Structures are given as C-alpha cells and as structure tokens.
C-alpha cells in the first residue's frame, strides 16, 4: 500500500497546474454525484446567511437528495432522477416538477478546453476547510463580463467543502460552505423523507415547458446583438411564463459556465414589469421595453453584462 501511494504522489507532481485544476473539478463533480453525504452548510449572499442541510444518497435506483432549510420555516426540496418536490410549509403548498437532469459541470475535455478560453483554471494549492485537508481550485474570468468561482475540495474524497462565486477581482458574492459534513456513510431512508406530512397542503404540478428547439434556426424573430465572447445559444423556447400572462420567447445563452436568459414578452400582459437593474445573490437581471415588448435578461453574470445584453436586443434574424 505504501508503494502505491509513493508512485501516485510522484505522478501527481508532474501534472501541469491547469490540467490539475481540471482533474480536481472533474473529480469534484463525480464526488457530488456518486457519493453519499450528509452535511450542514451556510449559504451567504446579499447580507443574508441561511443554514441548510443536504442529504445525498446514491443507490441502486440512482441519486436521491433532500435539501432542507434550518433557518426560519422548514422548507424542503426532495429530488430523485425523475421528480422534484418542493415543500413550503408557510403557504402550505407542495410543488412537484420534473427533475431536470442536473446540468453537470462541464467535464468533457472539449468543454473544459473551450471554457479555458474565457476563464483561467488554476490549482491554487492546499488549505483546510470544515476540518478536512482541502485543495483550492480557482476559475477566474478573463474579462469583466463574467463571474468566477473558487472551490475548496476535500483531498481525500474530492467532495466539495466550500464554494465561492466571485467577481472578476476575486471578491465573493455568493458562498456555500459546509460547517459539518459526513461523507461516505450509509444514509437511512428516514433521512431522505420530509419532516412533515403535508396534510392539508395544496398540491400543484409544474407544467412542462413548450417546444425546446435548440437550433437558432427556429427564428424567434428577435436577435441579441451584443454578448460577451463565447456565449452561444443553447436553448430556445416559446412557452407561457405564468397563467394568464401569455407566451414568452426564451433564449438561453451560455459560455459553458455562465448562462444568460433573454425573455421577450408582450409588455401589455405584464402587471409588474421589471425596469432597470435588480438581482439576488449571484443572479442579476435587467428589464426594459423594446418596441412594445418587455425584454428581461437574467443570468449569473455581473450587472453590467445583463444591461449590455438587454440593450442589444432588437428585431431581426440571428444570422450575424
């Protein structure tokens, strides 16, 4: 066993820093998906700190997760490969939706390659976090249009211990940090069940989205003329946002890491249209009216980016 360790250590020192960062990120992604874990973390953003617990188990039927709030009322989200169930005791409601396959962190070499055009991936070195020896991996944007990330990854299991979403200068905007974490132990069925019975709650089911044409050729009739380098159209939908509100055209752009949504709706149908900048945590939004349509841009990008994108939306065909 000792010989094995020595050989592995020797091999690892030869790895280039960028490749090393990628490897750690890949392993981290694998750990989040494949391991059993049960931990308490704090979620910090906008002057607020919320404590939550996450329980994750992988078994013969796939992944199962339970996320519950430890501050304030007992909100919970339960998820498996098919269904998401959100339980909100404050308004006595349960919402059931389709489990969207979790957008995995880009793992394929080609995805990470294209991301490194716009972000610098670095293995920053060792640290300690939540009582575990950790490796720090930084994803630094190469321009001011994007946010970056910093991850503390457990050296043994590659489990995520802490993550910061940061500005281009490295200042954290959103933080998720485990204060207690158990990795690899068995998780009981009991721990994956909600703490309330939902008796008397109002249940509703999420409507499926409209057609999800991915090709830009589905001509929404609108074009986004200014996007930061590397952002490409990844989804397009024509779907209702809310009952009685009419359809929205929804374009999703991504550079592989950050995503920006552009929503275009008939301005007459909206009661409380967004105007100007707003946001929550790492998500920023900009709303404006263009030719009688409410244009709303939302994304985990800096405010200046959503503003720029919104201002560049106009009628036309996306062929330039």
């Amino acid at each position, binding site marked *: 066993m000792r010989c094995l360790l020595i050989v592995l250590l020797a091999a690892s020192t030869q790895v280039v820093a960028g490749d090393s960062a990628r490897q750690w*990120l890949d392993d981290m992604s694998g750990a989040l998906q494949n391991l059993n874990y049960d931990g308490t973390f*704090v979620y*910090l953003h*906008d*002057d*607020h*700190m919320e404590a939550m617990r996450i329980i994750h188990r992988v078994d013969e039927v796939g992944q199962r997760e339970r996320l519950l*709030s430890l501050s*304030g009322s007992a*909100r919970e*989200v339960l*998820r498996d490969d098919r269904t*998401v*169930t959100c339980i*909100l005791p*404050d*308004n006595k409601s349960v*919402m*059931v*939706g389709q489990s969207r396959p*979790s*957008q995995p*962190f880009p793992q394929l070499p080609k995805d990470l390659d294209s991301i490194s055009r716009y972000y610098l991936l670095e293995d920053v070195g060792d640290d300690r976090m939540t009582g575990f020896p950790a490796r720090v991996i930084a994803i630094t944007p190469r321009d001011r249009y994007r946010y970056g*990330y910093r991850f503390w990854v457990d050296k043994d299991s590659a489990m*995520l211990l802490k*993550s910061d979403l940061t500005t281009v200068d490295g*200042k954290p*905007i959103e*933080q*998720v*940090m485990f204060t207690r974490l158990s990795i690899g132990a068995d998780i009981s*069925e009991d721990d*994956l*069940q*909600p703490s*309330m019975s939902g*008796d008397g709650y109002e*249940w*509703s*089911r999420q409507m499926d989205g409209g057609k999800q044409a991915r090709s830009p050729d589905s001509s929404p009739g609108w074009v986004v003329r200014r996007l930061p380098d590397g952002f490409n159209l990844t*989804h397009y939908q024509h779907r209702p*946002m*809310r*009952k009685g509100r009419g359809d929205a055209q929804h374009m*999703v752009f*991504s550079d592989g890491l950050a*995503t920006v*949504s552009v*929503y275009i709706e008939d301005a007459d149908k909206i*009661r*409380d249209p*967004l105007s100007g900048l*707003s946001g*929550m945590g790492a998500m*920023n*939004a900009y709303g404006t009216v263009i030719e009688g349509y409410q244009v709303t841009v*939302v*994304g985990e990008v800096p*405010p*200046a980016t959503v503003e720029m994108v919104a201002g560049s939306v106009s009628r036309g065909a996306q062929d330039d």
Partner: protein
Amino acid sequence: MKDSIKEQLSVLLDDELDEAEQALLLRQLSRNPELCSRLSRYQLISDAMHDNLPRCVDPAFHTRVTAALPAQGPARAAAPVASRLLRPAAGLALAASVAVVAVVSLQNVREQSPASPQAVASAHTADGYIRAQDTPVPVASVHTAPGLDIYLVNHNEYAVNPGMQGMLPYVRIVGKETQLSGDAAGSE
C-alpha cells in the same frame, strides 16, 4: 451426475437454454450443491479465458453472499421520493410554472433595512464576503424587485452548477424567507 444435466449447465451459461429447460434446471440447482459448484467452475473457465479472474479467487464466495441475504424477498419498490407526504386524493392541479409557488417564497427578501448584525456576524465575513453592491460595477444599487422571481426560478433551471450540481437552484429557492404576500399563487 448425468451428462445431460451437466450439458444443460453449459448451455445455461451461454444463455442458450430455452425457458422450459431453465425452470427445471434452476429447481435442480437449488437442491444440488454439487451442481452449483460445477456451474461455478464452468463460469470460472469462462472468466479465466476472458482474463476476468480476480487476484483472489474464492469459488465459495457465492455461498457467502447467499447466506447473508435477508430473509424477506427483495422489496417491491423503494420508498418513493417524499413518501411520507400525504398526497391529495384528487390529481395534482396544474400550475403555470414552478414560479407560481416560488412567487411567494422569493417575494422580496432583500429588505431595504440593513441585515441585523446576527445575520452575518461570523468568521465567514472575515473571508472578505461582501454584498453585491460592492462589486466594482458602476451601478447605483442592485436590489430585488417584485416580478423578478418568476424569471429567476425559470432561469435557474438552465444555469450550469459547478458546485452542488443540480441543487444550487434549489438552495436559492429554499434559502429565502417565505413571506405571505397579497399576490397569492396563480392570481396573475
């Protein structure tokens, strides 16, 4: 042991035994440990030819597994997600989108008044944790607005989540203090 039954073992291994023969053979396997050992050795030959022999070969391994099996048969179905929840007898009403519920949950938590000291008084802030306003962006102030949540919730489904995989969108939803608002779900 008759050749005919040994031959059936061989055919079973090759997945070429028809159903009628299968039933009979399986019954005999349960009564005859020697037949089992033989099957195990035939399988071993196959594994050896495919170089699938583990370094530690223990032909009795399967007996150890069978001995450790629980008395009751396999479960019919795992407890479904949220099985403890009492489901309504009628079907689920369709909501326009998940935002119908989220409207209430996300309703303007970002109060104008500064957060109470307890909210962020911890070693975490020593990390340099700051509010979004402090980002070096020429913007007067960034705040939540009514009507924002519907986009946030919808957009969240498309966000790539490097950390927390699929759970971060829900962290953002769960991490909101719920405020009952006059704008009841679905009333838009």
